[in-house]
């Protein structure tokens, strides 16, 4: 291993070989990534590095400034999804949680109480279409995405699913992400909000253990509260933990089984639905005004 940067001999050898810098893989290679100075103009100066000399072949290299977001492609696709959804005034909610938090049961109960009107569902799981089958039994259209080895849904998958779903204007699209509190936090799908679901059969310190997800979520549904008397779970501590990570997070204590908190949850959905509709109307008005001005009809 290289003592300067910790790079392995394999990498060092490959780079050294291509740049004819050194035939040695012993760590004595002319250093491939600290052996030059980066000028303010993006130039590379190989003479001022620690080795203090120029190595044949290396000078052919050049520096390309990229400064690009690694997830820019996903973010671009997500923005496209968002615009499509916003134009139709569809409220899209990205449901994220650990496996077994009760996401699908909660969703089935939510759809049942909303009378399935204008609701569509995208179900993400590594395998099986069990969840989509449960949703379809409520009468709402559902598309199952099997991610195979993938641990999260991405914007391309969701965009593709939207193509195949019949979305109604001013409807609600629930996206049930793969059960995973880590990876889905990084991938924007074009949703209006992320909804994190945590059940009282888990640990109250989960918001601290998996902070990225709770930082990204707008609301946390504390689920299975009907089981609270039987488990050692401090709901107040859990809420405090979530607010420590995300001071703006809303918390709703809920039980899909007993119906506790369902009214508050449905009310939250209705508020977001109104906000999305309001935005769509404002956007349409602005577009109309633009068209009138552009056509000289004003």
């Amino acid at each position, binding site marked *: 291993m290289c003592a300067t940067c910790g790079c392995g001999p394999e*990498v060092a050898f490959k780079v050294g070989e291509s740049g004819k810098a050194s035939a040695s893989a012993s760590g004595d290679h002319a250093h491939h990534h600290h052996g030059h100075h980066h000028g303010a103009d993006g130039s590379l100066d190989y003479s001022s590095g620690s080795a203090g000399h120029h190595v044949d072949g290396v000078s052919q290299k*050049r520096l390309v*400034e990229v400064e690009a977001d690694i*997830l820019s492609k996903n973010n671009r696709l997500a923005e496209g999804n968002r615009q499509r959804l916003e134009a139709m005034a569809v409220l899209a909610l990205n449901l994220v949680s650990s496996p077994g938090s009760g996401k699908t049961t909660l969703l089935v109960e939510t759809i049942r109480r909303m009378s399935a009107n204008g609701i569509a569902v995208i179900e993400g799981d590594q395998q099986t279409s069990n969840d989509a089958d449960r949703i379809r039994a409520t009468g709402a259209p559902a598309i199952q995405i099997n991610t195979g080895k993938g641990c999260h849904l991405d914007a391309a998958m969701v965009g593709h699913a939207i193509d195949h779903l019949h979305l109604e204007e001013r409807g609600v699209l629930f996206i049930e992400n793969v059960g995973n509190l880590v990876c889905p936090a*990084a991938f924007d799908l074009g949703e209006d909000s992320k909804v994190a679901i945590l059940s009282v059969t888990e640990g109250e310190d989960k918001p601290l253990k998996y902070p990225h997800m709770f930082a990204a979520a707008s609301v946390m549904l504390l689920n299975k509260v009907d089981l609270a008397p039987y488990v050692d779970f401090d709901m107040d501590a859990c809420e405090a933990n979530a607010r420590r990570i995300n001071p703006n997070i809303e918390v709703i204590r809920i039980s899909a089984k007993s119906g506790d908190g369902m009214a508050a949850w449905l009310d939250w959905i209705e508020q977001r639905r109104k906000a999305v509709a309001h935005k769509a109307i404002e956007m349409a008005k602005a577009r109309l005004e633009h068209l009138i001005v552009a056509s000289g009809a004003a």
Partner: protein
Amino acid sequence: MHELSICQSIIDLLSEQAAIAKFDRVVRVRLEIGCLAGVEPQALMFGFDVSARGTVADGAALEIIDLPAKAWCFDCDRTVDIETRGADCPLCSGGRLRVTGGDELRVKDLEVV
């Protein structure tokens, strides 16, 4: 293990750049990763070697520049450095912080031939 997806995104980005900036091969990639980006550098290193095989970045060295996380402390009325989400203010030990940076995930620059 979304690091593999992230590696694939990096490789896609490098392939796009190869066409734009006209180069054949990437020798070195420098990433800037905020300490709240939720990415494990070791997994990224491993995933990158695998993802790069047979692409413009085959054999390229990956260098990661860690960026600190920033938060606004409402009690100190100033920006402070933090290391984790939910951390207390390093100055006043208070807990009223709003995270303002640290989730960066960027390709900074490339060395190419």
